[in-house]
């Protein structure tokens, strides 16, 4: 098995004439938080969509624990153990917490074509999933609509982590949250890491990146321009890299950005 949970090799993707990703190579280890940072349009979201199977790369390939994978849809990525928590959360407001946790993975007891849902077991397991990550919510029967932003994020993250997932990808996990709630979500991310999952986080919050990340990839205009390890993390330096004030160590390999 490879030392990397996820390794993207020279991934490129274009939307029409727009080159969203150019020869992007990044890695993420199990038991680590890997952050991807960059300005809007730098290609972060496109990259994670490719890893999650939502989009397909034009060229290059992705290895999952050393094995090349080629996802054509998110379901395949999920089956391979990659879960994604989207910026827009992806929870269904009018369904209950347990219905959301088990959406499309309903436990059914079937006889023939009629498959009955085993609600009792799903509620029980939902409760276990949340407590395993120390998430406390009044009742798994509550509807998501009534939850606060932090509670929703906790449910979304629990859903991603609660299955046999090995890689959890998060797009701006605390963007819509207040300071206290952000802190709680960061605790949750730490716990996923301690569980041995590979956590990939997109964030605009540099202080958060400094706090959480073991490794940071800086992207600009569809390219990776720098790889920073935890010791090198510095908010000011990251801003300089993102805006282009600093060049970045990967720039020479990739060539001039202004082509």
């Amino acid at each position: 098995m490879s030392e990397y949970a996820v390794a993207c090799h020279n991934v490129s993707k274009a939307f029409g004439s727009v080159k969203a990703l150019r020869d992007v190579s990044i890695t993420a280890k199990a038991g680590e938080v890997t952050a991807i940072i960059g300005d809007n349009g730098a290609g972060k979201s496109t990259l994670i969509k490719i890893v999650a199977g939502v989009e397909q790369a034009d060229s290059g390939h992705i290895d999952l624990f050393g094995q090349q994978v080629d996802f054509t849809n998110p379901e395949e990525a999920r089956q391979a153990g990659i879960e994604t928590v989207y910026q827009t959360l992806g929870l269904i407001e009018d369904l209950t917490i347990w219905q959301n946790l088990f959406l499309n993975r309903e436990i059914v007891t079937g006889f023939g074509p009629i498959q009955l849902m085993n609600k009792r077991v799903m509620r029980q397991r939902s409760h276990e999933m949340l407590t395993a990550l120390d998430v406390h919510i009044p009742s798994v029967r509550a509807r998501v609509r009534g939850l606060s932003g932090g509670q929703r994020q906790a449910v979304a993250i629990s859903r991603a982590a609660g299955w046999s997932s090995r890689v959890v990808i998060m797009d701006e996990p605390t963007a819509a949250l207040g300071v206290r709630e952000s802190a709680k979500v960061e605790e949750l991310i730490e716990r996923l890491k301690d569980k041995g999952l590979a956590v990939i986080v997109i964030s605009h919050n540099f202080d958060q990146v400094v706090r959480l990340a073991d490794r940071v990839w800086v992207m600009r205009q569809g390219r990776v321009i720098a790889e920073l390890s935890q010791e090198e993390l510095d908010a000011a330096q990251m801003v300089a890299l993102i805006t282009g004030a600093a060049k970045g160590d990967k720039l020479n390999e990739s060539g001039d950005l202004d082509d």
Partner: protein
Amino acid sequence: MTPKVSGSGAASAAPGPSFSLHTIAAKLRDPYFWADWTVVFALVAAVLIFTALEPGNFMTAYNVNTILTASAVPAILALGQAFVIMTAGIDLSNAAVLTLGAVTFGWFFFRGYPLIWCMISAIIVGLIAGLINGLIIAQFKINDFIVTLGMLSLAQGVALVISNAKPVQVISPVLAQFAIGKIWVIPYLMILAFVLLLVCQFFLTQTKFGTHVLATGGNTDAARAMGVRTKAIKVSVYAISGTLAGVAAIVTISRIGAAEPAVNTAFLLNSVAAVVLGGVSLFGGRGNMIGPFVGAILLTMIINGLIVAGVPQYYQFIAIGLIVMVSAVLVRSAK
């Protein structure tokens, strides 16, 4: 409320038994509970008001039987419409598909086909019309309003062509017996509708399919991201609505003893109204089947009550229109 993602360890959420006091209290606080049950309170209120106004005429065995018999078709259509509206769609074609199913029934009946085949043909035609609606809406991502409006005209036109715009008499002792049969004051037709209600409610609440219908309506993108086959769900709900319109066609024929090519557009409005009254969100994602079913009975009862009370016929339309608008506002503000 703040998320208690702390390490305090005290489990505050116990997935306990369904009937604890805590659960009941939580239900009463849930605004959805009130949206779901408003229609039942309204039904009780309507019964009390009409009984008070017409003590000797309204709550008679005869009149209750009349109301329930007349409610069967609207109730069956409301079940199909409810499924569609739960996915945030709408089926404007159900009344016309009913007519097409009835005319198809008449076409086979006139040519001497056995009754069972005539009935199956009506249901199959409904299913096909619904599948066409669903496939166009889901596959080509075309507005449900436009597609089903097109189907309304298409089904009506085909019905007129098949029938040559003439009604076909359907003289069948079996159907006629079924239409007038009753247990106490409950007509067989209402029992049939009630069985369909149980089946629909079962699929909505006890199967994956039902959860996926609500998920598709609540947030299509999120549902798809979780791997829910939202296109298949959309096709299914229109197919169900069409199939139930086919069943409603058989019920209609059994009641009037003829297959008529005229489209009763009041059925369309009533089905949408019943679903709204029944607490199903027009934006999709939430609701149950009991509300629309009771809503259909309520609307039929109000029309009947006004007739019994001697209110001129045209005022019925005004009453229904007002009820729909007021209930839509009430359901909305309940959130």
